[in-house]
């Protein structure tokens, strides 16, 4: 009964979604201007926001990657809130799962996984660091880079049952990165006009040392996300019931 009702409601919802998607404006680009065309009336409306972001990225922020420029520069305050949400989640996980002693012992992983993961770990960490250092030049940034670093530690946790993240270094890294982010924002208040505004020289767009505060903030975010995600994985691994 419950399943039949769920299927009926879900299919009705599917139909409603498709009907409403039919009316979504189609975005396009006409050589100089972004526009949205209405599929029903056929009217065009020019949209100045994407073109402003794309043309302003290089001149205003010095970055090449427009998504990074939006995430760190134009909407930097939003990213600070996002990092706070991640921090709250990590704190909640740590609060709810205090380490219990004992439990089942997990079997040792086999030789190939153990030695292979030892061999691969530095390269995973290097790839993660590359991704978050080059966030303003290539696709990627602090969040994917941090996730790659956490995946390296997760691999170690899988291959060594006794491997665990030492709590103190992880929390020191995490708080130091968070404080760096906030302090850079406050320095923007001091040296420029508003919170999280760029106060460093922009440099040549396309080079590693460019784009002002974007690489600094993204490196801080990379460390923060990496340590938070690996501590979440560590806490979830500890529970053995």
């Amino acid at each position, binding site marked *: 009964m419950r399943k039949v009702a769920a299927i009926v409601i*879900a299919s009705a919802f599917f139909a409603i*979604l498709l009907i409403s998607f039919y009316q979504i404006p*189609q975005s396009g*680009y006409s050589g100089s201007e972004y526009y949205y065309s209405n599929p029903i009336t056929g009217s065009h409306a020019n949209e100045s926001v994407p073109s402003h972001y794309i043309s302003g990225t290089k001149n205003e922020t010095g970055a090449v990657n427009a998504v990074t420029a939006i*995430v760190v520069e134009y909407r930097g305050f939003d990213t600070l809130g*996002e990092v706070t949400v991640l921090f709250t989640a990590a704190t909640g996980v740590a609060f*709810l799962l205090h380490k219990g002693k004992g439990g089942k012992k997990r079997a040792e992983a086999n030789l190939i996984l153990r030695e292979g993961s030892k061999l691969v770990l530095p390269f995973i960490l290097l790839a993660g660091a590359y991704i978050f250092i080059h966030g303003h030049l290539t696709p990627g940034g602090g969040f994917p880079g941090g996730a790659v670093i956490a995946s390296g530690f997760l691999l170690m946790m899988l291959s060594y049952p006794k491997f665990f993240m030492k709590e103190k270094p992880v929390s020191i890294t995490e708080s130091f990165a968070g404080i760096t982010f906030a302090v850079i924002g406050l320095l923007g208040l001091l040296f420029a006009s508003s919170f999280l505004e760029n106060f460093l020289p922009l440099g040549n767009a396309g080079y590693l040392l460019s784009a002002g505060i974007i690489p600094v903030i993204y490196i801080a975010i990379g460390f923060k996300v990496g340590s938070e995600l690996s501590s979440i994985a560590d806490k979830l691994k500890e529970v053995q019931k």
Partner: protein
Amino acid sequence: MMWPEYVTVAALISIGLYGVMAKKNLMKIFIAISLMETGVNLLLITIGYIPEGTAPIENGNFVKYVDPLPQALVLTAIVIGLSVTALALTLLIRYHSKTGTLEYRRGMKW
């Protein structure tokens, strides 16, 4: 009109809705919520996509770039979704250690 994308979005959201309504296992409900999240993220990306657009990274020769704003917003949404999933799984672990089951039951005290 990009029909394959929109049909995928509608299918993901509807399957997630079905899972939330029909399943009793809390783990499966969380998987369904994650599916709905993926659908919404895909919808935002699809709205910002323009035909034959490339990633908005300037490399000298100018081509059509897709709208970068939805991509930045979806980056935020993915991270928030991950946090919510981690916290939900943590609560589920506590629930399981208290009740010994993953099933949702009405009026259960824990």
